């Protein structure tokens, strides 16, 4: 509810953001409580049940030994590419419209990565030994197996988490400082610590800009490599349908695609519930929509390529994979995926669609559902039909798995809800860069003096 008559002042940005931090309505607490409850009931409780009974609580079997846990893992890693894209790529291309959103997007990245890490722990058969996958000197004189794509995963994701954390933190320092100056009590003390004594001098700004760009450039190849490496978990196997070179670009494109759709969802929520209407506008949705369209087209192309490869190969195994995906047990999921990720996004051609908020929200959720289905199919459907026909078996996720999936979403939401109340979720200084320099008004000397 901005004042149309009065032009937006720089101070208004600070006010709005600080208000978003300090003023909390009932609906927030309800949302947070619900999210925490769902997280405990649907994620932790079933997980502990699974720890007790074994992975048998899930629906995996022989030979479909991977299931929704790994699909969720890949999905969350994919979602994490949202921040990278918006923060880094668009920063380097000097896109103005990203500035209001990128903080939340980076937060999404971080939290997606955290949730993905928990999915790994849920997936593994003996998670109490998962630290053995980390290279640390030990009495057993054993190092992990560095040839393994899963180890590449560990390395890449750890680097990515570390990089993203530094990146988001560093970019937020001026904002912490701004908020520090306007808050009291425990918040003030917290932000004093977090802002590291930022004073806003020219040198500091210069260094920040330089470091920020440096990290932005570094994180881009990191993000590409992370998801390529995740794809190699599958592509380095001999499983027909997984053993394809297209997987690395496929996953990276898919990640950016689902990440961008995730941003649209989050932006809608932030805009509506955090009163950020003047920060997040139709322009942003328009641009995100265009981005989604491009990614959708690339994604569709890659899928067609996969179909073509399967048919062209002429081998029984590859052809069977193709046939099975299209017409087999999981066929409804496959066509749902095509509908949501290839067909529906064509609506984005229309600018009217791109600039309507609720349709964009629905489409972005549909895209993410479709992308999750894609990950699920890659794991469940291909493992069902490998080389030896006698070992073919169908996999159906169990209640525990579905619950944990829902729970992981709740975990993500919980983390995000906590985030918006502690971190400034809109980048104050960058938004100010997008605004016109407000003219000082007659009689505003006191104002000028005060600032």
């Amino acid at each position, binding site marked *: 509810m901005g004042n149309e008559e009065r032009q937006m002042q720089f101070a208004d940005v600070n006010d709005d953001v600080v208000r978003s931090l300090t003023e909390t309505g009932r609906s927030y607490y309800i949302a947070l409580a619900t999210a925490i409850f769902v997280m405990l009931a649907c994620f932790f409780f079933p997980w502990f049940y699974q720890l007790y009974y*074994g*992975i*048998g609580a899930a629906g995996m*079997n*022989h030979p479909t030994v991977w299931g929704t846990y790994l699909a969720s893992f890949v999905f969350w890693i994919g979602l994490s590419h949202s921040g990278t894209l918006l923060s880094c790529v668009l920063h380097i291309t000097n896109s103005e419209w990203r500035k209001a959103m990128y903080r939340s997007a980076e937060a999404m990245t971080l939290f997606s990565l955290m949730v993905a890490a928990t999915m790994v722990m849920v997936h*593994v*058969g003996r998670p109490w030994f998962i630290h053995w996958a980390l290279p640390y000197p030990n009495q057993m004189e054993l190092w992990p*197996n560095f040839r393994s794509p899963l180890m590449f995963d560990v390395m890449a994701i750890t680097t990515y988490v570390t990089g993203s954390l530094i990146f988001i933190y560093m970019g937020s320092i001026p904002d912490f400082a701004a908020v520090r100056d306007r808050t009291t009590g425990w918040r003030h003390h917290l932000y004093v610590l977090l802002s590291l004594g930022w004073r806003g001098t020219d040198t500091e700004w210069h260094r920040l800009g330089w470091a920020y760009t440096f990290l932005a450039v570094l994180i881009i190849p990191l993000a590409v490599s992370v998801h390529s490496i995740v794809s190699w978990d599958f592509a380095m196997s001999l499983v027909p349908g997984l053993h394809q070179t297209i997987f690395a670009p496929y996953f990276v494109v898919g990640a950016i695609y689902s990440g961008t759709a995730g941003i649209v969802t989050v932006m809608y929520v932030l805009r509506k519930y955090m009163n950020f209407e003047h920060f997040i506008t139709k322009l942003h949705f328009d641009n995100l929509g265009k981005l989604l369209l491009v990614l959708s087209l690339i994604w569709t192309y890659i899928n067609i390529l996969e179909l073509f490869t399967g048919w062209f190969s002429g081998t029984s195994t590859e052809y069977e994979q193709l046939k099975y995906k299209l017409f087999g047990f999981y066929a409804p999921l496959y066509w749902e995926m095509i509908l949501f990720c290839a067909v529906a996004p064509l609506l984005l051609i229309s600018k009217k669609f791109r600039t309507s908020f609720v349709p964009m929200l629905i489409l972005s959720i549909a895209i993410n559902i479709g992308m999750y289905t894609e990950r699920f199919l890659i794991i469940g459907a291909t493992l069902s039909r490998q080389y030896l026909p006698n070992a073919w078996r*169908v996999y159906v996720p169990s209640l525990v798995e579905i619950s944990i999936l829902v729970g992981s979403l709740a975990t993500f939401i919980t983390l995000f809800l906590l985030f918006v109340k502690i971190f400034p979720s809109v980048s104050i200084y960058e938004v100010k860069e997008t605004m016109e320099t407000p003219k000082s008004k007659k009689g505003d000397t006191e104002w000028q003096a005060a600032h």
Partner: protein
Amino acid sequence: MNIMERFISSWQKYRKPGYYEDFDYAWTMSIDLDRCTGCSACVTACQAENNIPIVGEKELAKGREMHWIRIERYWEGEYPNAKLKFIPMLCQQCDAAPCETVCPVSATYHNQDGLNTQVYNRCIGTRSCAVYCPYEVRYFNYNSHHWDSPLDQQLNPDVSVREKGVMEKCTFCIQRVRQAKDHAKDDGRRRVQEGDIQPACVQTCPSEALVFGDRKDSNSKVAKSLADPRAYHVLDELNTLPSVVYLKKVDSDG
């Protein structure tokens, strides 16, 4: 040797082609499909020898088979010319095993006898080895297993009982191999002779379809099987260099 030297010598040892020629032994199994009758005695013998759990009907309905060796059956043709062919499928102990490279904690590795071993204590249960195995011969313990007393009296003390979350597979009865090597050492003989050790499945096969031995011994039966014109590997095109060789069934249509 210091760490660097050890690293370099290991590297050289394992990266040159034909490195497996330097193995102590090269245990090989040959399976004659013309002799195999599908009787499944090997399956039960393996179950008895290796403490393989009884998963129960409910788990089997979910598809969680637990047999280290399984008999695959393939129909060909239609009535009245239908034919049924059996093929026992077990861990092929590949010399270029896809499962060994992918385990993040090195719970599966190639030992000096040419066997692909599984270290239950190290396994954290990522199950990527099972995904990577093209023969689908790796079995995961989805639950902890229980033997109704006193069935647990039968458990073989030479083989560990695996807990939930751990991957297992055929080991060519490595406990018997170890024992045979120990006996050979005690006897003053330096090498294990042909016939000293037979895995449980080989020992029980009524039609002698399974034969086991050291292919480095040119007089062994398996060496002769390898030279047989009927010899082939399953999924040969994947170049996993399996240590199990199959002898083609002789099709003699009347």
